[in-house]
């Protein structure tokens, strides 16, 4: 093989860096959505690669549902500080208090309420672009989304009216009040993300690795025991050796039983996996079009 050859990960990396720089150059007020999860950890590394030795020229934004794993928020704050970035956190709780987000009677999940909270934050800071870590291999509505995904002034995605995206020429033009969601990891798979974490030697929150935890059996999954939705007497509770494969809210993220202690272990586990990453996310199982419906309303 010629020395002028990029392997798979190097190719994905240069594609993503190019996109990061296009955003910095074409938008006035971009932001990077950073949760502390594995995909957004890669995003921040790509931002470093795109902009160093300068500072990363955009703040980080996170919507805190109030149901996050504590380990995740801790990691988020530490990583943002390490990178010298400005981290903006907007809380669903505050959005509920101010009437921006209105829960349905008895609605415990904060999943839907993230949407108005995020859109309010975008409006508050007049962000014209939000970079997110979504990948096309995650879900079939996402499989249809462009790198540069246009949102109208209501924050909505119109899947039938997407701009053609040709070569590496991204059309970032928006009118005032509209914004763009940009997904530099579109072409990355779960495997690529972990291979990149290994290659770049990136730290990730501890919950990705095997640990002991009290879990409760619900809808065919082991969910963490929390005070938010305490186990009922009829429910089975067990202490298990588990880890998370994908991180959502603590009340809906299925834990998988796993002895994987290192990134290498995780890579072996994924290679042998027989279910997809989002198979452990109850929020996606609501219906065949669950993700599409949320995206149309302005979800990540």
């Amino acid at each position, binding site marked *: *093989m*010629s020395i*002028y*050859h*990029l*392997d*798979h990960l*190097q190719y994905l*990396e*240069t*594609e993503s*860096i*190019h996109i990061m*720089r*296009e955003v*910095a*150059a074409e938008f006035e007020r971009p932001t990077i959505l950073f949760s502390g999860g594995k995909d957004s950890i890669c995003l921040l590394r790509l931002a*470093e690669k*795109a902009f160093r*030795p*300068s*500072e990363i020229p955009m703040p980080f934004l996170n919507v805190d549902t109030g149901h996050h794993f504590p380990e995740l928020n801790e990691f988020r704050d530490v990583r943002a500080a390490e990178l010298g970035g400005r981290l903006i956190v907007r809380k669903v709780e505050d959005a509920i208090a101010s009437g921006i987000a209105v829960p349905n009677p008895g609605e415990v999940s904060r999943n839907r309420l993230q949407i108005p909270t995020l859109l309010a934050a975008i409006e508050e800071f007049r962000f014209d672009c939000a970079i997110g870590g979504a990948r096309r*291999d995650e*879900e*079939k*509505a*996402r*499989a*249809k989304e462009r790198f540069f995904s246009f949102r109208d002034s209501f924050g909505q995605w119109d*899947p*039938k009216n*997407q*701009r*053609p*995206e*040709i*070569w*590496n*020429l991204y*059309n970032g*033009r*928006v*009118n005032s009040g509209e914004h763009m969601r940009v997904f530099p990891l579109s*072409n990355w*798979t779960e*495997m690529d993300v972990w*291979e990149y974490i290994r290659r770049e030697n990136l730290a990730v929150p501890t919950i990705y690795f095997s640990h002991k935890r009290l879990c409760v059996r619900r809808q065919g999954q082991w969910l963490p025991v929390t005070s938010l939705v305490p186990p009922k007497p009829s429910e089975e509770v067990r202490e298990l050796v588990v880890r998370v494969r994908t991180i959502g809210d603590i009340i809906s993220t299925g834990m998988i039983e796993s002895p994987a202690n290192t990134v*290498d272990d995780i*890579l*072996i586990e*994924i*290679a042998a*996996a*027989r*279910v*997809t990453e989002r*198979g452990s996310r109850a929020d996606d199982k609501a219906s*065949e*079009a669950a993700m*599409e419906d949320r995206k149309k309303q302005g979800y990540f």
Partner: protein
Amino acid sequence: MSSSSPLTVDLLRFNTCGSVDDGKSTLIGRLLYDSKSLMEDQLEALERSADLTGGGQINLANLTDGLRAEREQGITIDVAYRYFATPRRKFIIADTPGHVQYTRNMVTGASTANLSIVLVDARLGVIEQSRRHTCIASLLRIPHLVVAVNKMDLVGWSEERFHEIRANFEGFLPRLDIKDVKFIPMSALNGDNVVDPSSHTPWYAGPTLLGHLEGVHIGSDWNLDGFRFPVQWVNRPNRPQDTQWHDFRGISGQIAGGIIRVGQTVMILPSGLKTTVQEIWTMDGPLEQAFCPQSITLRLAHDVDVSRGDTVIGLSSMPGVSSELRARVCWMNTRPLQAGRKYFLKHTTQTVQAVVTSIENRLNISDFEAEIGPRELTVNDLGEIRLRTSRPLVFDAYSVNRLTGSFILIEPGSNQTVGAGMLFPPTEAIKPEYTDFAI
């Protein structure tokens, strides 16, 4: 070291195209299913939807038809991307719709492909859509083409029918510019010759589709001849207190062609100023040389005026620099293209204003003849136009370099991407004013 992933695997990007009901989505479903790239929860979801809409039969197309309207209408609306890997290669599939009004999506899916699969329904043979898609693949200069003659089970696995379709294709291929074409008889629905060889085609000695995808030689799709570096972003750390960085001035971008080495003389266009490369900076340390399509930051020996939209070039081959351009376009909007219309034109890293000065011709897909001087180009039309831009472009012929030879047209107001353009070779070599003026 774990054995979970080999150190280097290469990547093949391909797209599938055909018309409605040729079975593209079924073919992709079959590739994923038979190569064991589908997971249990995806199969479960398939089985659930089979009970609802498929009369109990698993519908492989439901794997890729991700939007509700698509599943309801049984058509594919938008480009869907799929990812799978075999021990030999990683693959990115763009499933591009065949519905006639969605040809723009075919251009989207095919523009980054190494290989294109055109599906043909063995019962129908070559139809206008097959010609259109083959023609687009040729115009986009996709190096490899596979003609998947599908639904062979419905023509009784007739060798004669297969050769008839092949002959039909070969009748117009010489008028196009595709070097490598492979014909494969198959049934995506039943899985014949997709991943596993079929027992129905003893007369076919070639590889299965997956065998071909794993083995086809893709070499380097990137241009490594003339150095081209469109400036994306000027990298100036704003750290006045920090002595290490306070003089740092870099220009960041992705190499769009060629190779660059430290100490090499380069020219900045359109100004024509010459300087040398002092350092190739990356976060992982400096490089001695870099090549297309790496993303890097260049430090130049002189503090010359460089900004986004400029292009740094090597001196071995000169690009065109002009604001009068000739190009072939694929029109993608329902509002037609007419002479005199103004658009934004995005080319490499700059967006300029452009006016269409004339429409030279419109390509007739059925006979590949050019209709001279049409009044307009309507949606899905291909044709040649002339343009004038508000600033000169630094460009190469699309046939020489896909990245410096392509542009998109954006409609002011709606901001829709309405056209994809491929530039013709420059009519004269550049004569920058300062060619002999080194700073």
